[in-house]
């Protein structure tokens, strides 16, 4: 029986769209839905603003006749289109299109469907918005370029689509392995941090890193290496059209088509092998050598007590949780970066660097504190089976997070000392007093959120799970409120010319917040018992 191409394509497209639609469903109530709508709108606006920015920049460059600079605007789109799918793949389950091979599907149809799948992905949609913005800007700057720009962008998009699908096809099998996914996710996250260095390195200034060999190398690379790559080739088509240089246009067009052809060939090669039944192995290699008794008891002979056991387990989880480690490192890194003397508001930042750094540093712990049971998955059941109070479990986790924050605080203090100079003794004591108020308040709210608004969390990736947005929004609101109280107390008393009173006021507030934290801990068993089935349904089911 012949199966029509239209039916097959429609079936696959329907399946993909249903998956997208089902991905927006929430079982976590109206607050979660509202929060998700709010944040989706917020990020959409941000991206539209970025597209608008690209349009304005494109308009400016075109009006000024700087057509070569258009490549700089195409680079972020190119990088996003190539790297975002890999990052997304690192933190969510991938759709294995080889499952389609059990259907009566010809090779050409399989390749076409594989490419089409790439069109119904977030990076393609984001790139389309960005390219539209840039297109409008260029055409507004010089309307005669509408056709050349359209052609350049169309081939650029085709090239990107084929390239990203080729990369994805080759990485697909490797991404099926947990370790590879996590490694790629971490590389991407730390790549983001690395990008923060490009700006100071490129623009010079007094930053010590711009005088290093690394800084000089980055500048040299940025200046001339990208000529034969797709963004520069696309820009060359537009520049050629603007200058009436047919040879320039042809070079750009042929170059892009060559790229697209190469990517298509690579993609076809991989898919041909898949179609023939070959797949890169995703089997986890097994060791054939039995371990010694010593290796089995390596890393401690047992924790001895429930608090010790949980402390030890949390430490092991942290060691293996790339996204959490990233969250802890990123604030330190950014604090280091904003410590340049030419940063706007440097004087104010320098004065309040310690409390600001401490507050900022806590952000990396937010997910852990406000959803402390979220990473347990099926392990959550064990807490109800073990002869241990949930209060003990929560307290042990709180203590671990406090220890973690203490380490972070020491590192922040070191960075502050070397980037902004030693803070005054008053600022140190006031910061400690503030933290004595802020931390118990954070933990009280965090424990309540952990028990009442838990969501499944993958500690190895920056994923957005159902229920996460509502929890994160309330957690953020709590932090803003705590910071607002601290700011009001400090600046209110400073305005009243009695800043030294901030310390006793913070200590008084610390008594209140500690009492609140103690109350939440004492109520934890009762709340957990009442919420047992809801927590199990949210965290255990499907794990």
């Amino acid at each position: 029986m012949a199966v029509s191409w239209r039916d097959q394509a429609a079936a696959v497209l329907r399946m993909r769209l249903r998956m997208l639609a089902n991905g927006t469903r929430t079982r976590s109530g109206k607050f979660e839905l509202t929060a998700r709508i709010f944040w989706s709108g917020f990020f959409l606006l941000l991206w539209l603003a970025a597209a608008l920015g690209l349009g304005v920049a494109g308009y400016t460059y075109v009006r000024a006749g700087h057509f070569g600079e258009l490549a700089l605007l195409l680079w972020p789109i190119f990088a996003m289109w190539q790297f975002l799918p890999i990052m997304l793949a690192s933190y969510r389950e991938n759709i294995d299109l080889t499952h389609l091979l059990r259907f009566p599907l010809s090779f050409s149809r399989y390749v076409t469907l594989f490419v089409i799948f790439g069109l119904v992905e977030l990076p393609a949609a984001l790139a389309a918005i960005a390219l539209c913005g840039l297109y409008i800007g260029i055409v507004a700057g010089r309307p005669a370029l509408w056709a050349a720009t359209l052609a350049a962008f169309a081939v650029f998009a085709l090239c990107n689509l084929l390239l990203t699908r080729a990369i994805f096809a080759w990485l697909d099998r490797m991404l099926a392995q947990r370790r590879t996914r996590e490694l790629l996710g971490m590389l991407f996250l730390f790549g983001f941090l690395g990008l923060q260095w490009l700006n100071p390195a490129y623009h010079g200034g007094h930053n010590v890193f711009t005088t290093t060999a690394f800084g000089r190398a980055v500048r040299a690379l940025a200046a001339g290496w990208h000529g034969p790559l797709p963004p520069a080739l696309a820009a060359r088509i537009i520049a050629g059209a603007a200058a009436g240089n047919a040879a320039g246009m042809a070079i750009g067009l042929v170059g892009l088509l060559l790229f697209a052809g190469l990517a298509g060939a690579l993609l076809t090669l991989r898919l041909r092998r898949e179609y023939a039944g070959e797949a890169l192995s995703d089997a986890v290699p097994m060791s054939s050598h039995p371990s010694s008794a010593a290796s089995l008891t390596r890393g401690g002979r047992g924790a001895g007590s429930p608090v010790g056991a949980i402390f030890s387990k949390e430490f092991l989880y942290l060691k293996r949780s790339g996204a959490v480690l990233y969250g802890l490192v990123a604030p330190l890194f950014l604090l280091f970066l904003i410590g340049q003397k030419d940063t706007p508001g440097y004087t104010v930042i320098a004065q309040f660097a310690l409390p600001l750094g401490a507050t900022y540093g806590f952000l990396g712990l937010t997910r852990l504190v406000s959803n402390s049971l979220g990473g347990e998955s099926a392990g959550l059941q064990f807490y109800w089976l073990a002869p241990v109070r949930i209060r003990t479990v929560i307290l042990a986790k709180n203590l671990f997070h406090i220890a973690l924050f203490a380490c972070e605080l020491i590192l922040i203090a070191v960075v502050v000392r070397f980037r902004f100079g030693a803070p005054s003794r008053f600022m140190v004591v006031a910061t400690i007093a503030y933290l004595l108020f802020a931390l118990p308040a954070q933990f009280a709210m965090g424990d309540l959120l952990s028990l009442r608004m838990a969501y499944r969390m993958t500690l190895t990736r920056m994923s957005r799970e159902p229920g996460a947005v509502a929890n994160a929004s309330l957690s953020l609101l709590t932090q803003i409120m705590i910071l607002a109280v601290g700011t009001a107390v400090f600046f209110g008393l400073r305005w009243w010319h009695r800043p030294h009173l901030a310390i006793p006021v913070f200590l008084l507030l610390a008594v209140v917040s500690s009492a609140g934290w103690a109350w939440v801990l004492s109520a934890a068993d009762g709340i957990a018992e009442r919420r047992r089935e809801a927590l199990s349904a949210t965290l255990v089911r499907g794990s």
Partner: protein
Amino acid sequence: MDAIACDCLTRRFGEFTAVDCVSLQVAPGQFYGFLGPNGAGKSTTIKMLTGLLAPTSGTVRLLGETLRPDAYALKGRIGVLPEGMALFERLTAAEYLRFVAGMYGLDRDVTATRTRELLEFMQLDTTPGRLIADFSHGMKKKVALAAAVIHGPKLLFLDEPFEGVDAVAAGTLKTMLQGMIQRGATIFLTSHVLEIVERLCSHVAIIAKGKIVAHGSLEDLRSGAGTHIGGSNGDSQRTLEDIFLSHVGSEPGAASAELSWL
């Protein structure tokens, strides 16, 4: 004193009654099999018996003590392999067992010894650095079973312990469980594999649509002397499969509902 005694245990989810007034008595030292078709209420019952799920009504007594959420001493005397296995998958098997031992308050030397012995017994000692997340389903099951027994429980609940476990490993597990019974422990297990239950268990209960339809010793059920509720007694040589099907087998008329287009 019964090892397990539950009285009219009921659990409703909205309008749906998953378990309807189940009463069971399991004597110490019994290897008790709990059977039923999919959706009959086996896992719901075992969850209520182990404290993972609160009953809508009814009581549970384990080892002579009423099961309550704060019955921590009692929880220290029972072991559970739950449906979801309750694993922390970002740990290695050895790390997980040490964690579990810590939660049960075992001292460090006992923890180290038992961890090593369990991993060797379960043949999980070949890949010490591998995370549980990377284990096969059968290996995960063995880790979960090792965790359920590391503290030497007097009463062991196992929800489908042999599901996904290969024949060799299943043989190892059976040996371990029979050893526990010989040393006086009580084991309550659910399984879909009737052959395993028939070989291991001394007593059996069959649940269907949330109600116990038969229970008693295997011999009594075979001979028709066991407690049958709405079922029919049969020949003295009936297998467990015969008994099972006679109570929960095909609905009248189901055989005629064929898919004629196949």
